[in-house]
């Protein structure tokens, strides 16, 4: 368990960040100060753990990666071979060699499963802890019947510094919304791929011809022109009130150099960018690290294309796994090198696993009953395997864990009481963790 000082920063981090500031990277002094000031205002001991969710939408085939079954019949085990990792006794897929070298920094839960195998509901289940009820419509954006983890975190812990507390990239997942927690808990979405050569967060800065002097003029002008903002109208109307709050927030975002720096991925060394991998997944991981470093509390990376109904092995081997290998392994190593791993929890999961039996198209279909998830950092021990699935990875063989338990574990690590309740629009008190969620044993 980490020991944090009451200002929420670890002494070691202070030294590191100070040094980083001098070299013009990472955090700036004013930011550290503002972080401290905030903690002081709160007057409570805050355990400032951030969360990065790498969501492999479509459904990662965990029988081919986290939970291989080399003893199973050929029509189940598939063509990949397991390899040793830097933790004795734990094996991973041969196409994740770099990740095998970081196994000591994260753990696997192999007795994980959920009672849904549909895109949409399962995503919602994983990202909120709640299986959606009647009337759920996965096509809505957001489709949340319950707030996503990031929204709960934003609502409970609030922003840290000038950056938004909850960020989605490179797009917003349909189940990433804040539901009844309202606009202040909704994610800030970076609608752009950090791997694009001309990557820029849309609208975060004014067009080129508007320099900072002119922006200042415009802002002053706006304050004079907008009579409703000064008058009583904005306070008496909820939407108008939110709009004017956001306008203040937006100017903070636009004028804060730390935000600008955080989103400016080109400030990273080329070598490190290469190590993360020059693809959407890799650069999104790097961006997530930058954002967490700048004070973002939850980053949700929505990475698609994992729905391998056809040619599962070819697609994984040639395309998806190399990307996962470079992005995820460098993220763990980089967080560790920067002393951020203790305060950053990383969760890697799809919405479900894939059918243990290979289908006629050399693919695997949706499989909720058994999957595995990978977690590390932020209080989660590394190099462990929790639970197991049966010999063909069809179902959990030990105490099964599900999205409810994942929610309880996340909130515990982030220092949020899992019994916290919010009210739904119908006035029902809804706990952030469903009644039967319990912390996954042996991880923390």
């Amino acid at each position: 368990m980490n020991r944090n000082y009451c200002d929420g920063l670890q002494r070691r981090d202070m030294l590191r960040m100070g040094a980083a500031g001098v070299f013009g990277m990472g955090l700036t002094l004013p930011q550290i100060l503002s972080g401290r000031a905030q903690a002081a205002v709160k007057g409570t001991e805050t355990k400032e753990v951030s969360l990065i969710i790498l969501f492999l939408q479509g459904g990662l085939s965990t029988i081919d990666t986290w939970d291989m079954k080399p003893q199973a019949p050929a029509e189940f085990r598939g063509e990949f071979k397991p390899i040793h990792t830097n933790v004795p006794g734990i094996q991973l897929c041969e196409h994740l060699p770099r990740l095998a070298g970081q196994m000591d920094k994260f753990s696997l839960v192999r007795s994980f499963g959920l009672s849904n195998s549909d895109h949409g509901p399962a995503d919602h289940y994983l990202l909120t802890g709640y299986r959606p009820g009647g009337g759920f419509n996965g096509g809505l954006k957001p489709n949340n019947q319950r707030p996503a983890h990031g929204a709960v975190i934003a609502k409970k812990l609030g922003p840290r510094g000038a950056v938004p507390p909850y960020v989605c990239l490179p797009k917003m997942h349909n189940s990433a919304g804040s539901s009844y927690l309202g606009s202040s808990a909704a994610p800030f979405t970076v609608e752009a791929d950090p791997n694009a050569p001309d990557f820029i967060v849309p609208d975060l800065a004014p067009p080129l011809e508007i320099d900072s002097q002119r922006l200042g003029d415009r802002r002053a002008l706006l304050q004079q022109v907008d009579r409703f903002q000064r008058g009583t109208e904005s306070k008496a109307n909820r939407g108008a009130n939110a709009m004017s709050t956001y306008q203040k927030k937006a100017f903070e975002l636009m004028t804060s150099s730390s935000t600008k720096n955080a989103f400016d991925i080109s400030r990273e060394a080329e070598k490190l960018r290469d190590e993360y991998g020059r693809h959407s997944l890799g650069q999104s991981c790097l961006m997530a690290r930058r954002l967490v470093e700048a004070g973002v509390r939850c980053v949700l990376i929505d990475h698609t294309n994992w729905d391998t109904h056809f040619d599962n092995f070819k697609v994984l081997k040639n395309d998806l796994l190399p990307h996962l290998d470079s992005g995820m392994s460098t993220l763990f190593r980089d967080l560790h090198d920067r002393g951020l791993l203790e305060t950053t929890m990383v969760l890697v999961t799809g919405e479900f696993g894939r059918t243990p039996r290979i289908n006629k198209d050399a693919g695997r279909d949706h499989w909720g009953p058994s999957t595995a998830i990978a977690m590390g950092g932020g209080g989660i021990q590394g190099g462990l395997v929790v639970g197991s699935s049966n010999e063909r990875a069809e179902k959990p063989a030990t105490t099964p864990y599900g999205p409810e338990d994942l929610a309880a574990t996340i909130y515990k690590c982030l220092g949020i009481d899992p019994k916290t309740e919010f009210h739904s629009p119908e006035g029902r008190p809804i706990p952030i963790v469903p009644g039967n969620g319990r912390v996954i044993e042996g991880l923390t």
Partner: protein
Amino acid sequence: MPAIHQLLYRLLISGISCLLLTIAQLQLADRGLASEPTLDSADAKSTDQQRPLNFENDIVPVLTKFGCNASGCHGKAEGQNGFKLSVFGFDPLADHKAITREGRGRRIFPASPKHSLFLEKASGDLPHGGGIRISSDRPEYETLSRWIALGSPIGSPNDPHISSIQITPHSAQLAMGQTQQLRVQATFSDGWQTDVTALATFQSNNDGLASVDDKGLVSIGKVPGDVAVMTSYLGQVDVFRALVPSERTASTNATTTEIADANFIDQHIHAKLNLLNLLPSAPSDDATYLRRTYLDIIGTLPSTAEAREFLTDASAGRREDLVDRLLERSEYADYWGLKWSDLLRVNRLELGRKNAYLYYQWIRDSFSQNKHLDRFAHELITAEGPIREQPAGLFYKVVSDPKQMASTLSQALLGVRIECAQCHHHPYDRWGQEDYYGMQAFFNDVAFKSSFQGEALVPTGTAKSENPRTGLQVAARALGEKSPAHVKSDARQQSGLRYELSGWLTDKQNPYFARNMANRIWAQFMGRGLIEPVDDVRMTNPASHPELLDALAEYLKEHDYDQHALIKLITSSITYQRSSEPNESNASDQQNYSRYPLKQLEAEVLFDAVCQTTGVSEKFAGVPEGSRAIQLWDSHVPHYFLQLFGRPMRTTACECERVGEPTVSQVLHVLNSPEIQGKLSHDNGRLAKLVQMSDETLIEELYLTFFGRPASNLERQFASEHMQKHNDRQRALEDLAWSMMNSLEFLFNH
């Protein structure tokens, strides 16, 4: 005061448990005497003191109250950890079996009830995923224990069943911060009455106004208005309504009684405001009324010239004349066509380009011809034949499942959500599965065939549905009707049953259709339905002004469902014409229409406003040059702005699909988007022309264009100072226009 309520409540609870114990003892004694106690022998003649336990009457309410059969727990479709109950206890037979027989009977141990797994789990004696639900010192624990000891009887079919519940008090006027304990009494079919407060569930329809705890103690908040607290018990519901007046101030005392009424709308609204001690805002000026009616009726800003013309019109009837003109504009059909295309789901991805356009044209034409709403509904419900001739039939292609046809049309046309009743009795309303499958049956014969005239809707098969739980066939039956629908012998078309449904729906006696249409139109103008959300009509979600809603529905019927007539009525009321500026007394009012609300412009309307004010139109993919956003019949036309501002994807018939909440990204986009800056600085745009003019003219034009009103003296002064301060006039003008576009006055209808 709360302390006294709590004390009273405790007394009440202990009273109930005493009573339960007494009954228990009597019954034990009773059964001890009988050598072979049969349930039949105990029924019918039972008196108040000798009521036998009945699973449905006595045990299910306990499971409901403590959340055991909630949809998140054992009530969910697959149960929880191998123990499955019907959600909210709608299927007592199955629940009885689950408790007493399944799990090889290990859940029940009559010889020593407290060692029953059922009780050990519920009380937390054994580890239970759901935690301690019913601790062993509770009276309900005793009830369960006693029931097990008695051999877990299911009861007799002849046992009295619940007939109603009554909440007391039924209504009250309460002060802010006050509390009120509610009591719930159940009446059974044999006339027996008992207090069920402890086992009833409670829910407030507006937490800002009042909250309620699980013991029925209502706590009033700090907002004036009225609030409904619903209680439910064994599938029965009742409602307590509280009126919470604003605290009296000197200003309210002075003037509340002297408000004039323009029509019956104002009478109803003012009567309520009087009760609540709320003083309405002042009347709005002509410029505000102009912009407001343009946006509400045609989703379009007044042009500079139109604003100038209206503001110089001094005739007495200028406001009414304005509305008459707007109703005849082509944008009226565009805008209302857009709204109904959302609800009725015009969707290119599902229908293909040609059909989606055909379907849209039918909707838009309906509004351009001012087709009366009953006719519109009739065409939609009874569509049959080649879709080229009956494009309304395309509804049944977008919504292709008869269950969804029934629930989508119920929601859109009646404002009633029946989806819950697909699986169980609607927990907060009267709808049961018979209602759901009865409605579905009307649509079960909908089928498409290709014909020489192209694709055609041709009824095929029988219009009956099957309840999958009971396996029984259900005949078509309109919502809430006792008897099934019959096809009259003179029905010429095959879709006879749907003709019957349409006849029922548009009959002037129909309790839903006219009210729903009136409520939807009211909400469009007043920002909030008299029933809110507009498509969630149920007994437990009462209207804020029920008499007004009835009167509006009546008015609509008297005018043969003419939407224009109702719009004219609403827009001529003093209520609609009030300023949005709050006064001291009504700033916290959210539901009593004491001022006009600020409404964020819809994605399409806002974008059109940006294009219109900058004088630079947008070219959308797949539609002719010059088309405006409100004319887009396809909600999937790629467009970042429209998507960002919450254009719906049309995947449901819910109004809620259009996201009304602003986001940081929206704000950032209007502030910073290069596209909007491009429109401001466009060579052929409006600003390029204005910059040639004198400061005075330019400022006058800007305010008329962006805000639809003349600049005030103060504004004129500061704007001309701003223009003179900068050498670069183009830049100064762009910045001024930019700040107008980013102000709430532009982004909202007010």
